[in-house]
C-alpha cells in the first residue's frame, strides 16, 4: 500500500502550478472586466463638416468601435423660441456635425492621443475632444498586480517543475526494480508501467480537486466577495466552469508527461 507521503510531493507541486494558473485566469478576468468599465467612461467627440461613418475610419485603429451622430437638432430646439427663424437657419448652415466615437476596449492615454491625431487627419474632421470621467489609478494598480503575479507565477512554476523532476527521479529509482523484473518475464511496457500511470492519474486528480475546491470555497467566501466588490469587480469572476477544463488539462498533462518521462528513461540492465 502506498502511503499519503508518496502522493504528497507530486500533488503539492501540481497544486502550486494549478493555483498559479487559476490566479492568473482570475486576475486576467478582473482586469478585462475593469477595462470594459473604463472604456464606457471614455468618450471621444468628433466635430466634422461632413458626415463620418465608422467604415470611413475603422481602418485607422482597431480600437474604434462605433460612431454615432449626436443629434444637434435637440440643442437647436432648446434655443428655438429665443431666436428668429432667420438666425436659426443661419446657425444650421454653419453648424458642424457632432459624432460620438465609442471605443472597442480600453486603452492608455498615449494610444488615445495617437488615435486623436490620426482622426484629425481624416478629411472633414475639424476637432477631436477627449472626455475622461475616471482616473485610471486602480487600473494601473491592477496591471501592476498582474505583472507581479505573472512573475511570481513563473517562479513558482519553475520551482514546482524542479520539485516534480526530483520526484520523478525518486519514482524512477523506486519503480526501476519492479519494471526490470517484469520486463525479464516479458511484460509489455503498458503493463510494467501501469502502477506509475495510475499513481500519476491519482496525484493529478488530487491536485486538481484541491484547487477546484479551494476556488469554490473562495467564491462563496464572504470576505473574498467583499474584497472583489470593493474594487468594483464582479465576484462571479472568481471561478468559471471553463477554468475546470484548463486546470484538468494542465494537471493530467503535466503528471502523465512526468510518468511517460520515467517510462521512457527505463532501460533494461545487463
Amino acid at each position, binding site marked *: 500500500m502506498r502511503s499519503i507521503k508518496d502522493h504528497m510531493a507530486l500533488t503539492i507541486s501540481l497544486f502550486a502550478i494549478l493555483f498559479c494558473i487559476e490566479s492568473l485566469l482570475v486576475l486576467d478576468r478582473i482586469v478585462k472586466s475593469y477595462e470594459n468599465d473604463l472604456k464606457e467612461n471614455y468618450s471621444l467627440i468628433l466635430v466634422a463638416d461632413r458626415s463620418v461613418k465608422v467604415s470611413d475610419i475603422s481602418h485607422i485603429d482597431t480600437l474604434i468601435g462605433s460612431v454615432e451622430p449626436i443629434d444637434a437638432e435637440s440643442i437647436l430646439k432648446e434655443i428655438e423660441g429665443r431666436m428668429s427663424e432667420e438666425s436659426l437657419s443661419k446657425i444650421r448652415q454653419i453648424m458642424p456635425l457632432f459624432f460620438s466615437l465609442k471605443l472597442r476596449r480600453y486603452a492608455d492615454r498615449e494610444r488615445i492621443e495617437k488615435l486623436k491625431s490620426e482622426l484629425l487627419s481624416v478629411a472633414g474632421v475639424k476637432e477631436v475632444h477627449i472626455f475622461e470621467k475616471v482616473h485610471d489609478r486602480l487600473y494601473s494598480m491592477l496591471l501592476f498586480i498582474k505583472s507581479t503575479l505573472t512573475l511570481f507565477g513563473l517562479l513558482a512554476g519553475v520551482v514546482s517543475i524542479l520539485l516534480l523532476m526530483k520526484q520523478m527521479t525518486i519514482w524512477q529509482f523506486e519503480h526501476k*526494480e*519492479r519494471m*526490470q*523484473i*517484469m*520486463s*525479464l*518475464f*516479458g*511484460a*509489455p511496457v503498458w*503493463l510494467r508501467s501501469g502502477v506509475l500511470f495510475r499513481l500519476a492519474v491519482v496525484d493529478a486528480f488530487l491536485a486538481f480537486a484541491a484547487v477546484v475546491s479551494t476556488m469554490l470555497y473562495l467564491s462563496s467566501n464572504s470576505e473574498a466577495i467583499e474584497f472583489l466588490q470593493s474594487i468594483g469587480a464582479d465576484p462571479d469572476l472568481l471561478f468559471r466552469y471553463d477554468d475546470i477544463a484548463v486546470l484538468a488539462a494542465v494537471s493530467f498533462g503535466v503528471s502523465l508527461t512526468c510518468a511517460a518521462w520515467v517510462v521512457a528513461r527505463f532501460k*533494461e*540492465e*545487463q
Partner: protein
Amino acid sequence: MQKVIEAAGLKLAYPRHEPVIKSASFEVETGEFVFITGASGSGKSTLLKSMYGSMPIYGGELQVGGIDMGSISGSKLYKLRRHIGIIFQDYKLIREWNVEKNVMLPLIISGFPKDVCRAQAQKLLTHVKLSHKSDKYPMELSGGEQQRVAMARALAHNPFLILADEPTGNLDDYSSQVVWDLLERANEELDTTILVVTHHIPEMLSANYRHLMIENGVLYEIH
C-alpha cells in the same frame, strides 16, 4: 527431437570489454537437463543472459525456441520470455508484492484471469512448501524461502524452458533439496527443458543430465 537451443560459434562481450564467451557451439533438445559449470567469472551468467535476450550477440549464432536471438525485435523478445522460466542468483522478487502475487507474475503478464492466477500460485506454493507464507513479503522470508518463491514463479506458467543461475548457490540443504526436486519433477513430468548454472552438480540427482563447462571463454561438453 526438437531443438530448444542452438548455438554456433557464439561470442558474447560487454560493451568496451574483451569477449567473455569466445566460442560456444552446442545444441539442447526438448526435455534435456543440462548443467553448465565453470570458474567464478568464467561467463556462466553471461551465457544464460544471452538466452533470455539480456545480452547482445557479439558474434556467431544463437537460437532459442527457433528464434534468432541476434535479430529478435522487442515485442518478439517479450513474447519469448513469457514462455521461459528464469531463476536468478539474487532471486529478483518484487519487494512491494506479497509472495502469492510474486508467483502470479508470469500468469498476470500472460493475461490470465485473477482467480486462475491465484489458484495456480497456490498450487505451486504448496509444491515449494510455502503455502503458509503466501501473504508475506519477500523481506520477511529467509534466502532459502525467497529462492523457493522464485522457483514457484519460474514454474507458474509451465514454461518450455527453465534457465536457472546458481539456484542453490547459498541455500540451506532443505531449500536446495526442494529446488532440485522440483526441477527434476518438471523435467520428468512435463518434459521441460532445463539449463542450470552451478558450482557443483548435486549427487542426489537421479535424472540423466548433460554437463557443459566453460573454460577460458570456450564451452566444452564433458562426457
